[in-house]
């Protein structure tokens, strides 16, 4: 007769099964606890983040927002060749100036050399790759020499920054001069 060595004691198997089951349940519970509620709503990401992304404050506005209060400058800026230049580029973001429809702080005013630096960011001829048909570029200080003005003159002494040829046009009209290439 063959002897049976097979044990009839299954305690260790039960223990392992219990540990696995409890571990599994704990893992599922922990996953539920730590995963955000909307995770996986639309894909492998937190669905509610789509709403959160929209909560970012709009800090830069459009020129139209500025024109709502700054009426006189609107007429000049919109009529000139600088109409596509953003107010906020030179003056700073709207949100630093107006919050919830209320004035909060003054935006810094650009003066003297700051103005020249700003002008030359776009109009500097030395930096090539600026097509003449889209922007008028000048070389400094050759431009000043050519126009026979003092070499330390600032751009805004001849050019109205919001409409660069406004004063020049006015002066020409007063003196009865014609623009280059213009015939009577």
């Amino acid at each position, binding site marked *: 007769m063959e002897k049976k060595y097979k044990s009839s004691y299954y305690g260790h198997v039960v223990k392992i099964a219990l540990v696995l089951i409890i571990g599994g349940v704990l893992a599922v519970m922990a996953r539920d606890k730590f995963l955000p509620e909307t995770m996986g709503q639309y894909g492998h*990401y937190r669905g509610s983040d789509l709403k959160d992304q929209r909560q*970012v404050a709009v800090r830069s506005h*459009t020129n139209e927002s500025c024109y709502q209060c700054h009426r006189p400058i609107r007429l000049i800026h919109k009529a000139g060749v600088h109409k*596509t230049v953003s107010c906020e*580029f030179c003056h700073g973001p709207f949100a630093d100036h107006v919050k*919830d429809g209320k004035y909060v702080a003054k935006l810094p005013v650009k003066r003297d050399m700051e103005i020249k*630096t700003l002008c030359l960011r776009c109009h500097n001829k030395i930096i090539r790759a600026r097509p003449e048909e889209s922007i008028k570029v000048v070389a400094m200080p050759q431009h000043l020499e050519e126009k026979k003005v003092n070499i330390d003159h600032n751009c805004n002494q001849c050019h109205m920054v919001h409409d660069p040829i406004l004063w020049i046009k006015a002066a020409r009209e007063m003196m009865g001069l014609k623009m280059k290439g213009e015939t009577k």
Partner: protein
Amino acid sequence: MIDIKKEIQKDRRAFIKNVLSGTIAGSLLMVIPAGAALDERLPEQLPGMRGDDSPFTEKKFAFVVDVTACIGCGSCCVADKNEYNVPDGNYRTWVERYIIDDHDEVFVDSPNGGLDGYSKPRTDIPNPVRDTFFVPKLCNMCEKPSCVQVCPVGATYKTEDGFILVDKDRCVGCGYCIQACPYSVRFLNPVNRTAEKCTWCYHRVREGLLPACVNVCPVHARKFGDLNDKTSEVYKILREPHVISVLKPGMGNQPALHYLGLRREVV
């Protein structure tokens, strides 16, 4: 008897409390301005976006950068920094200057990401310069984004309308996506230690506004619009014959950012 009195007292107190809080709240509401509605201050630039609360729009957005128009003024970089208060030294968008000399050697630089503009010419170029141009860079919003694929926690994802966004709360700052991006548009925000990148101004677009950089570009080198709209400018540009290309097409990411007149030196 005493009980009834108490009850009345209690009610009276509650009544006075209600009336007082009501009047105070009411007068406060009148004093504190609710702020003019967005419609009043900002005209809608992208039609049909405002007031749309659905998680995804029906639109297919595309971004076109006209390299031949860019003058390298850096308005876009300034607007971007203003909009997001991007920490110094990190750039969500930047402008590169390419200089090609007559020996076909290419020089690329981007001092401070173009944030201060280009005020000085490069002096270290030995040969006569043949051509110079500017290339603005930003998130390519790939059809098959590598960054989304590598994110271990599902913080970076692609929305059904094509935006690739980063969930600040989920991001653990491991930096996998920063390495995976073929266009190097991502950086680790040094303040909150999470990955950050250009979102094509998702919050503005959902309010019907153009991205901040598109809005300020003085020469209209940056264009943004809906490809499902047959009348939009980007649809016409991508439809009509132009020299259009994307950056690193060999990577197979299929960007939604297209460049008009892009030179082979850049690709």
